[in-house]
């Protein structure tokens, strides 16, 4: 085989692997969380890929929409799913990824906002109070968590000197290992992204997605009116958002490790999927051990996340001097 052929083969295999990950990792995340919770409660629990089977089953079912709804509702599902797919392509949440365009961190954060706006509009379209209150809370969580996520990414950007996530997550930071703060910043940002993703995805300790509907106030309330394929898509988009955010956090941890140990591309690839799985399992453990916070206490929880990001950003801004 010539070099060109090998190159082509590599690109093809990258794409195939990547598409497989987009399809399989989100349901796997959900499955892992469920399984962990079940095991901790001494149950056997559903098989790992049950969420995928659920989604496939939902796709076969018919759809009921409210007579109050305008086209916005179905449009919102489509836009949210499309945005999430585009985000999955652009964001470096896995270490092996086919070519993607400039993934500016501000663009990424605002694409997440695009998906959020459409979810909110879909929730408000039915005219039911459930959806609207879910939306109202989602918007509150969004306000609290957006500065944390953005600052965390900015901290990374500062010490790589670019706002392009491709360059930030490029495993190319060996040349400035002189700054001892490097693994520290990666760790801090990883934790802050992980914690803010818990808020962003409205999981424990902010909101419990598996309880009775009256107690589950955010995402499940917003998608109450969705059914059939619509529901399958919006659930899948939510799971994809979860794996992107967990993936970003896992990448931060892997980078923190890579700053200390040199590793091969294969190890990095395995670690990036393994990291997501470990995060999903630990989220499952967290959900079994902790209780849901009172709604009024949520801002305090988020304050920790924001201060974590701020700390990382200030450290990054400080160490940048030595490098420039």
């Amino acid at each position, binding site marked *: 085989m010539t070099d060109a052929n090998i190159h082509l083969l590599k690109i093809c295999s990258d794409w195939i692997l990547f598409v497989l990950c987009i399809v399989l990792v989100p349901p796997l995340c959900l499955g892992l969380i469920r399984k962990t919770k079940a095991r901790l409660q001494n149950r056997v629990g559903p098989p790992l890929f049950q969420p995928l089977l659920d989604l496939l089953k939902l*796709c076969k079912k018919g*759809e*009921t*929409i*409210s*007579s*109050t709804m*305008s086209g*916005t509702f179905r449009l919102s599902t*489509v*836009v949210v799913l*499309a945005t999430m*797919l*585009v985000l999955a392509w652009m964001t470096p949440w896995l270490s092996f990824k086919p070519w993607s*365009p*400039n993934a*500016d961190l*501000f*663009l990424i*954060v*605002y694409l997440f*906002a*695009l998906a*959020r*706006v459409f979810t909110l*509009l879909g*929730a*408000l*379209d*039915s*005219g*039911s*109070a459930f959806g*609207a*209150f879910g*939306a*109202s*809370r989602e*918007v509150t969580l*969004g*306000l609290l968590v*957006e*500065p944390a996520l953005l*600052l965390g990414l*900015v901290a990374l*950007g*500062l010490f790589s000197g670019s*706002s392009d996530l491709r360059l930030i997550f490029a495993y190319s930071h060996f040349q400035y290992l002189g700054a001892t703060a490097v693994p520290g910043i990666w760790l801090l940002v990883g934790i802050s992204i992980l914690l803010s993703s818990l808020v962003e995805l409205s999981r424990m300790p902010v909101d419990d997605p598996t309880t009775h509907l009256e107690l589950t106030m955010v995402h499940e309330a917003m998608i109450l*009116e969705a059914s059939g*394929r*619509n529901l399958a*898509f919006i659930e899948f988009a939510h799971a994809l958002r979860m794996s992107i955010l967990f993936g970003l956090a896992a990448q931060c941890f892997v980078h923190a490790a890579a700053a200390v140990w040199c590793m091969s591309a294969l190890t990095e690839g395995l670690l990036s999927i393994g990291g997501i799985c470990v995060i999903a399992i630990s989220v499952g453990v967290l959900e079994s051990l902790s209780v849901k916070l009172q*709604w009024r206490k949520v801002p305090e929880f988020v304050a920790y996340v*924001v201060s974590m990001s*701020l700390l990382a*950003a*200030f450290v990054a*801004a*400080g160490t*940048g001097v030595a490098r420039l």
Partner: protein
Amino acid sequence: MNAPVIFLESVVFLMLAALAAFVLCQKKDVSDKALSFLLCAIAAGAMAALCLTWNQQFLFETPAPFLLGVFPLTFRLDGLSRLFLMLLSLILFSTGLFSPGYLKHLKEKISGGQYWLSFLLFSLSMFGVVLSADAITFIVMWEVMSLSSVALVASDHTHHLVQKSALIYLGATRIASGLLCGGFLWMHSLCGSWNFADWNFASPQAIFPALLILLGFCIKAGVWPFHIWLPYAHPAAPATVSALMSGFMIKIPIYGLIRILVQGGLYAPEITNFAFVLGAISAFWGVLFALVQNDLKRLLAYSSIENIGLILLALAISLKAKAANLPVVADIAMTAALFHCFNHGLVKSLLFLSVGAVDCQAHSRDLHKLGGLAKKMPWTMACFFLGSFSICSIPPLNGFASKWLIYQSLFKSTLMYGSYLERGISLATICLLSAVGALAIATFVKAMGVGFLGMSRSHSAEHAEEASIGMKASQSLLVVLCVGLGVFASSALKIISQLAVMSPDLTSGTAIDFPLPIPMLTGLLITTCLAIYVIFLQSSKVKIFKTWDCGFGPLSAKTQASSDSFAQPLARIFRPFLRYETNSTIKGRDRRHFPEEIAVEVKIVSILEQRIYLPSLAMISYLAKGMAKLQAGSIHLYLLYVCSTLVILLLLGTVL
């Protein structure tokens, strides 16, 4: 054809148009269509003149008989004024398209002649302000603009609220003009010239006139804490006027700041830091109060305060970076300020016009009385939604492009500044901006969701019909511009930096890098959406049924979340800033189970107004009453005053 000829021709054309308009306005029964057509023609003519003279710039002095006292009126057209005039022409054109349909429902309330006269005067004076090259011409045009806009705010002057708003606005314009006159006179005594080009703010004595000018412009722009006139004036005026005021008039102070202070070489850190703080606070304060408004126009007015704050912030970043010798950051921030001015102008006019269409068709702007317009006015809804996305800086719309530049300038300054303090400030500002962005999303999702989706909350909203074709066309024109500027932001930025280079001392001319693949992303998003819809959703079996109602029977519109309840969780978090009071009364014999009367009242108290403005007004009128005792109406007393003044003066003369 050379530029001065085209300029003269367009001036003559404008004069003729104005003359025709004034003649038309004198008639009892004014034809809205004719005057709107005239407005569109003026706007199109101005646009054509601007485009024909693209690469030229020139100074123009009025010849001998058209002097102002002994001074000629001087005008200058360069890159900066061209950019602002293009925005003005676009907004004027779309308001012209919008007017005939919209003014129909105001027919009984406002007098057409007075409205059109003030409107044309207002539009022409704005051309004048932007073109003026010296302080005298500027202040004359500025005064015509201010007073004609007061007349427009007072169009529907039979309402008590409108009267109050017009008076507050008038007071604000007077104070602003007073401060500006003071600053201009001071600068004249320092530099010995009325010409803006001769003014130099680099000297340390120029700090005080610069401060006066900054304050004057801040009042007119509605920057915190001088913003209180804005949420009164915008809702009171007809939608076309609010579109022009919010879209363009409040950008004129920004233009003035750039023209006078920035091009005058201001770098005093006191002034730039002051502007920076004011900008940051306005951005946050504006959006926070926008969140809790129920009147759509008031909400938009507060959101204008936010955006003016962002623009001022970008200007301040640029000035600071220039002083710190970081030309890259300075250029990005300046371009961001200019681009955000342009974008916000288009988007805010679009939003005001959409709300005008809603007001016209559903007879209310109160979110408690709207809802369910999605099926009645889909076109207006689509335009309002796209405008809202843009103002929330959602990619790929134009609001995102300029917001990205502001972020980028802050990011770059965090990287490049030497001092840790400056880096920390830039980081904190990034944090603040993202919170402001999230609050803007909350605000506009509320406006979109409660205003247009769900069930109709009133009879008139239920029977609303789609707006007339002219109204739809004008909104669509602005939407196309917003989307176009967003998707092709890199080309737009090239044009803006080209224009900025044509003006002296604005940017150092480094190319602004806009590396985001927005056109590709837009294409990809649209294709993916279409693919998902066509492949999966189109074929799914859909049953239409009532909203899930927990088995209690059909829902009433009142069971939906109201605008207050939607904003409540956020308003709670910001209790220190928002004095948010809820009073609920439940009455009846067995009030737990069968209440006979339920009333909930939510009140937002504006702290600035209650704590600072009203007390200081009260103090001024108290002092004025004390002063009034001096004027007792008795000739003896007055003779005593004259005599004692004389004695004091003589004494002073001997002592000194």
